[in-house]
């Protein structure tokens, strides 16, 4: 994982998790790696992972039962919110880039439809 040094690393870690959850790579209820393992794998400071996990726990994205490793939430509503959040972020990002080029909305929609169907 490459990190943007201008954004808190822990937030980037959380985003990574959200992407994995939205794409289905991490399934509801799936066990996640320990703080240590993840730090080692991503090659980051264990403190950062700790902070990310805490934040995710606070946001309800993961839960930890006593003496077990943490798991992805099974709460369907939260998972839905994560998906929506990511879609929204992508859309926002797209609109911001495209708006400056000043293309009419219908043309843009047509292009999206084409690309999306071709990509499938």
């Amino acid at each position, binding site marked *: 994982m490459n990190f943007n*040094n*201008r954004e808190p690393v822990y937030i980037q870690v959380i985003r990574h998790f959200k992407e994995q959850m939205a794409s289905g790579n991490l399934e509801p209820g799936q066990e996640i790696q320990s703080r240590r393992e993840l730090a080692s794998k991503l*090659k*980051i*400071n264990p403190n*950062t992972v700790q902070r990310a996990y805490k934040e995710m726990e606070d946001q309800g994205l993961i839960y930890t039962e006593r003496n077990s490793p943490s798991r992805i939430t099974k709460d369907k509503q939260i998972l839905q919110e994560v998906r929506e959040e990511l879609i929204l972020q992508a859309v926002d990002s797209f609109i911001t880039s495209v708006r400056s080029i000043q293309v009419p909305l219908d043309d843009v929609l047509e292009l999206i439809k084409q690309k999306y169907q071709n990509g499938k």
Partner: protein
Amino acid sequence: MIEVKNIRKKYGGKTVLEDISFTAEKGDITCLIGLNGAGKTTILNAIMGLTPIQSGQILINGEVLHKASYEKISYIPDTISMSPQMKISQGLQFMDDFYSSWNHKRASELLDFFSLSENERISRLSKGNIAKLNILLGLSLDVEFIIMDEPFSGIDLFSREQIAEVFTSNLIEDRGVIITTHEINEIEHLIDKAILLYDGTVLKEFCTEETREKEGKSVVDVMREVYQK
């Protein structure tokens, strides 16, 4: 916690350190950043009692440095810290003989990790391998604080990656780490606190994630701001 309080040092008529203060917490990776000659190594040497200071105080967990402190802090200098005439195995034995905090199991693991051979004579090691040996000697002590001086300087890329891995592993966990470097890019995402030095003074002390969050600035951005003045 290591507290450096208003230390001042002169060497041969020149003031090398001027009122340096900072703290390094246990569990954090604290990085001293500055150009060569800014006094980074001198500060580390002073913390370890390897050079005297004219005024100020250095406290380790609230205590002044004494002989038992060396079982609690480990220093990995940028120069070889074992007798070059020895073989690596003899060097390890030496550490075992003198330090009760020596963890020979970890030493063996690191030996494998760094692909070093016990029978190699230290004087024959390449620069990269000397750096690795130093790190091995430093990390194989069960201490609370680890201090590293320029662990990446003059090291080839692959050795650097190996060394950087050490920071993310359980070898560092729960310990306080102080590291100096003038190559911040590679490890920016690893450090918790940055201390910018210039010409023997502290220009700025800040927490990296906080600065990223509140100001959207990377450590390099802050450095640019501060050093340009």
